[in-house]
């Protein structure tokens, strides 16, 4: 409960918005003003000492910043935008947050309620537009409905499987007067965020686990969302089961642990993909069998029984049939499971993974991190950075080849220290998400790894860095190509490089324009020193590394192929 001065007296709807944010312990918001949200911005003016507002340069940047903020801190990200174009600019970030289960509350201004449906200036039906990509949304037309709507919004966003919500508030509701009394939302009759774990499901799961010869754990984002890292570790150690991670599950399991076998998916590690089709029990925890993980589903783990630990009932049997589904929170489920699993040893099975790791090292990794090419390769940059940071920096990526390389060669030591756009694959995510992460954890190193293409999708957020002094480090891996698309053109479209070559600006000069220092390197001999300089910088820093133009990411599971058909070169 808050104790600010206006409590229990009449306030405007706009002020109610701010007070509700304070009552939800919000400390940071990302936004951009405009006509229909001006009353809220005006109210914010009186609360600048309690609420930090970060002025982005495009509303999409605000959504990704809120996502980055949430992904590293667990707090709900908050976004403020105006009606019409302000609101529509949020959609990409909302869709990204929806598919990557990120809690976010977006507050948009809307035209006066008497103008709704008249095509008034800057009126868009943002509630309608955002419906397919929000967990929940609502339009508020009365001042007194604002606080209850926000209470619900925060509850829905962060409970169960988290997601984005949108609250659209008409201008007259912001101007209207209301008594303010905040009541936190603690349940909604029709909403069941977290099923209670059933003992029976746990017993069935334990029985399969205790009888398996080649059990295999797939760890997803749900482990991080649930905070179940310790429970997962205890379970894996007791039953001696290899653990592989999805892209969004990275950082949930300690990367140097002998049971950690690597990462899954189209450009993941060799063993984790290949051996999916050799295990006899697949234990999926908080993951949803995305097609980038499964490859061809008709040839996916057909030999194995499947246990699916999942909070969202609609995910069970959606893609892969589960022999046992354990519905509920992963942490709770794993705690209940632990005493029921037997201590085991799966030495031979684990050896299979080790063998694969050796093969992958010889065929892919060795050359990638220590190349004989004249030009720099992405992997050696990331590998050097990994060694420099010892995996203790938060790394945020954009989307493309550099993303896949970073997820392969940077292995974070600390849970939630890896942030990327997985389900939507949103280019332009990286820079603003890194800004949000740095705002959430200002004392942690935050490094954005971007491609030359994606950087330019939200490059204007350098202005946010400048204005709010956000010490984000930026590595641009410049291959002068939309590299990931070019790779596909090379492999599947006969090298017809249709509009994937980029004529790029002078990134360092742009950085300077925003008051951000930087350096461009093209040669191997400068790499280590440049990385060190960047890492040691107290302020934001832009490091452009010119890399091989036509490098391909391997291993790879081609579209339509099974995980076992993963190729190394």
């Amino acid at each position: 409960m808050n104790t600010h001065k206006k409590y229990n007296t009449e306030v405007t709807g706009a002020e109610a918005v701010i007070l509700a944010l304070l009552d939800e312990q919000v400390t940071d918001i990302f936004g951009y003003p405009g006509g229909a949200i001006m009353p809220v911005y005006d109210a914010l003016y009186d609360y600048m000492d309690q609420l930090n507002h970060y002025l982005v340069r495009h509303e999409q940047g605000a959504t990704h910043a809120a996502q980055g903020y949430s992904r590293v801190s667990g707090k709900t990200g908050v976004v403020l935008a105006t009606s019409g174009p302000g609101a529509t600019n949020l959609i990409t970030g909302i869709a990204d947050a929806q598919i990557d289960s990120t809690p976010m509350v977006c507050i948009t201004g809307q035209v006066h309620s008497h103008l709704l449906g008249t095509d008034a200036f800057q009126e868009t039906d943002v509630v309608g537009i955002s419906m397919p990509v929000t967990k929940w949304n609502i339009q508020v037309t009365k001042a007194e409905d604002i606080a209850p709507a926000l209470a619900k919004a925060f509850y829905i966003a962060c409970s169960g499987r988290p997601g984005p919500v949108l609250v659209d508030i008409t201008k007259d509701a912001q101007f209207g007067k209301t008594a303010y009394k905040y009541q936190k939302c603690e349940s909604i009759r029709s909403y069941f965020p977290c099923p209670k774990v059933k003992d029976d499901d746990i017993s069935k799961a334990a029985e399969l686990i205790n009888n398996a010869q080649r059990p295999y754990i797939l760890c997803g984002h749900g482990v991080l969302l649930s905070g179940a890292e310790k429970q997962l570790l205890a379970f894996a150690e007791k039953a001696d089961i290899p653990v592989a991670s999805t892209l969004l599950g990275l950082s949930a399991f300690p990367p140097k642990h002998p049971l950690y076998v690597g990462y899954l998916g189209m450009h993941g590690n060799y063993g984790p993909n290949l051996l999916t089709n050799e295990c006899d029990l697949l234990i999926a925890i908080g993951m949803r069998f995305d097609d980038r993980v499964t490859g061809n589903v008709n040839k996916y783990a057909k030999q194995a029984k499947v246990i699916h630990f999942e909070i969202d009932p609609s995910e069970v049997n959606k893609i892969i049939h589960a022999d046992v589904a354990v519905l509920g929170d992963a942490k709770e489920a794993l705690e209940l499971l632990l005493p029921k699993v037997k201590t085991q040893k799966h030495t031979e099975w684990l050896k299979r993974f080790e063998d694969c790791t050796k093969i992958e090292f010889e065929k892919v990794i060795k050359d990638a991190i220590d190349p004989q090419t004249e030009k720099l390769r992405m992997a050696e940059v990331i590998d050097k950075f990994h060694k420099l940071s010892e995996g203790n920096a938060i790394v945020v990526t954009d989307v493309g080849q550099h993303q896949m390389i970073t997820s392969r060669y940077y292995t974070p030591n600390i849970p939630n220290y890896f942030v990327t756009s997985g389900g939507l694959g949103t280019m332009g995510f990286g820079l603003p998400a890194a800004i949000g992460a740095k705002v959430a954890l200002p004392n942690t190193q935050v490094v954005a790894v971007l491609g030359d293409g994606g950087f330019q999708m939200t490059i204007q957020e350098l202005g946010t860095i400048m204005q709010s002094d956000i010490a984000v480090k930026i590595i641009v891996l410049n291959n002068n190509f939309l590299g990931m698309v070019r790779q596909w053109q090379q492999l599947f479209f006969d090298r017809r490089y249709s509009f994937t070559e980029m004529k790029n600006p002078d990134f360092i000069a742009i950085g300077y324009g925003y008051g951000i220092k930087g350096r461009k390197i093209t040669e191997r001999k400068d790499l280590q020193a440049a990385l060190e300089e960047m890492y040691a910088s107290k302020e934001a820093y832009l490091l452009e590394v010119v890399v091989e133009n036509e490098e391909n990411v391997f291993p790879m599971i081609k579209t339509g192929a099974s995980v076992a058909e993963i190729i190394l070169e």
Partner: protein
Amino acid sequence: MDNTYTLSVFTEDKIGLLNRVTIIFTRRHINIESITASESEVKGIYRYTIVITVSQEQVEKLVGQIEKQVEVLKAFYHINNDILSREIALYKVSAEALKENELFTRIVNENHAKILSIAPEYIVIEKTGDEREILHLFNDLEKFGILEFVRSGRVAITKPMKTLNTFLKEVENNSKTVIKHFSK
């Protein structure tokens, strides 16, 4: 194999919710054959009846997605054997039909329909029944020329005995699970 399924969706009263539910179908390229919405036996709780033709696997997934919506209390799917369903249809035919009064009256009676209104230019006939019966009458009336025809879409009652109130109690207990807040 595709089958006709009738979905019963129980919801809170919220603007836009019907839209949220129909988006689930359109996104998957599934055509809604009929949809009706009205308040249920419990005040404030609405019931949508939706008819679709899909596979068993599809209908299970659809129901999962529908139930996932925050304001949906519960969704069920039924095959035709599990429900009693009715539609209402109105047929407007030219008053000329009365020239063949005997035939016309026989058709109306045999189809268990009734005459709702007679005006100088037209007659309106009302028929309640299943889809097949409604089409049967349509075919019979066609010889008089059908000026207008409208069907309500299916409404259905389920055969299994479990009242909405029992579901509501279960639902309320389920929603009281503690909030899970991940914090670092």
